């Protein structure tokens, strides 16, 4: 597995993928829908998926002495690592934003722990839809991307609308007031749990489908 991860980072990942991590700095914008800072990373993923199809990554990997399902595990782990890196790089910007501008965000949910919880769920949603769909054929990239990115868009609108329009959610989740930190941390923990469970689910479903694919 370690060797496969090294393969992913040395051969499969486009260096441009890391560029989108810089988008985490968008959390410094005083008023902005902060979900946007986390969705640029999908552009990096799209490049990775398309490039790897053209680079015949699947056939190359299948020729190595590894189990077919491990290639799926390595790819999902790699994408999950990038997602975690995107979140990790956003944390310091969220802290700095809170320090230099304690005013709330008029453009959407504040950069607080709850936002990060919702972002974990957003990535979970993408992983759960994209990977099982892609590994059904292991070459059709477009539809899995269209469906998963559409679901992410609907999810972002749903969360923002719910938080802005439901008073109790607005009070507890759209604030930088430390008094609501416990609730927000609970949302974060729930988000992390969903992220982990979805990665396991996505792997099991995708690996099962990939085993049946003729390369």
């Amino acid at each position, binding site marked *: 597995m370690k060797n496969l991860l090294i*393969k992913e980072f*040395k*051969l499969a990942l486009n260096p441009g993928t890391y560029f989108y991590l810089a988008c985490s700095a968008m959390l410094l914008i005083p008023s902005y829908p902060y979900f946007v800072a986390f969705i640029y990373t999908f552009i990096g993923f799209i490049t990775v998926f398309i490039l790897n199809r053209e680079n015949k990554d699947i*056939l190359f990997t299948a*020729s190595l*002495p590894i*189990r077919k399902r491990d290639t799926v595990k390595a790819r999902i782990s790699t994408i999950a690592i990038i997602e975690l890196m995107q979140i990790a790089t956003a944390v310091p910007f969220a802290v700095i934003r809170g320090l230099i501008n304690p005013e709330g965000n008029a453009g959407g949910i504040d950069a607080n722990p709850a936002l990060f919880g919702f972002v974990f769920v957003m990535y979970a949603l993408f992983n759960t839809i994209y990977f099982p769909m892609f590994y059904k054929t292991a070459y059709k990239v477009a539809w899995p991307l269209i469906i998963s990115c559409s679901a992410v868009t609907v999810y972002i609108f749903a969360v923002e609308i719910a938080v802005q329009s439901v008073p109790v959610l607005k009070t507890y989740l759209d604030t930088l007031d430390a008094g609501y930190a416990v609730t927000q941390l609970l949302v974060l923990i729930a988000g992390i749990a969903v992220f982990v469970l979805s990665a396991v689910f996505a792997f099991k479903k995708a690996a099962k489908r990939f085993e049946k694919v*003729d390369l």
Partner: protein
Amino acid sequence: MEMLSVQNLSKRYEKFELKNVSFALEKGYIMGFIGRNGAGKTTTLKTMLNLVHADSGKAVVFGKEFSDNELAIKQQIGFMFGGANFYPKKKLKTVTSVVRRFYNEWDDAAYERYLKRFDLDEDKKVDELSQGMKVKYDLTLALSHNAKLLILDEPTSGLDPVSRDDLLELFQELIEDGERSILFSTQITSDLEKCADFITYIKDGKIVASTNKDDFLGSYKIVKGTVEQLTEETKHRLIGYKKNAFGFAGLIKTENLPSGGCLDVFAADIESIMIYFEKEQKD
């Protein structure tokens, strides 16, 4: 000792079927796998290696069933797919630094030796290699992990005659110590004349013949005769024939040669055998 034994491999697609493909390759020999485009060569190789799921049948490599011992067997084989251009924008040394990690018997000294021998520059990108050099790089990777069985899908395709000859000589050199075997598919029949010990011929997903080259060539003859000699009985005996201004020429199984010696009989080469089989020009 049998390096590879393919037993009754079958795979059905909507418009193509691999039917009970069987052949075997002994240690220390080269087998050429011929057939025209779409005959099932690549499908056979992929099905053997479990990249395509067989409906039935099995491949036995080094005496063990491939599907049950895939990881261990893959440690000792090297395979290359024609036209596959992996990571064209990566440097060879980057690809090697990844590949070497997966093999228990990776030998850095052998790798360096083959790089030098094939004049490969590790700092070049895969895309910057000629087709022949790409094949040599693939071979370098296979030989550096001490692969005992090389399975190569159309390694000579797209090579100029000199590079092809060079590669075929290399194949012969690689099996000289009697420890390795090579199975390579091709549609270039002269490749087989030059270096194959055994020939397996596939047509429409079925194996027509799998035998040593001399027996293969010996079992067919080219016959020529006049139009009058092309009787219904002669047509029935012929595998395929072509009419021309002087009469006809056709392919016949040696055992089916008519007695009496009225037809002109010539030795058949692999190309003629393949052409007459594929054309089967019977009216």
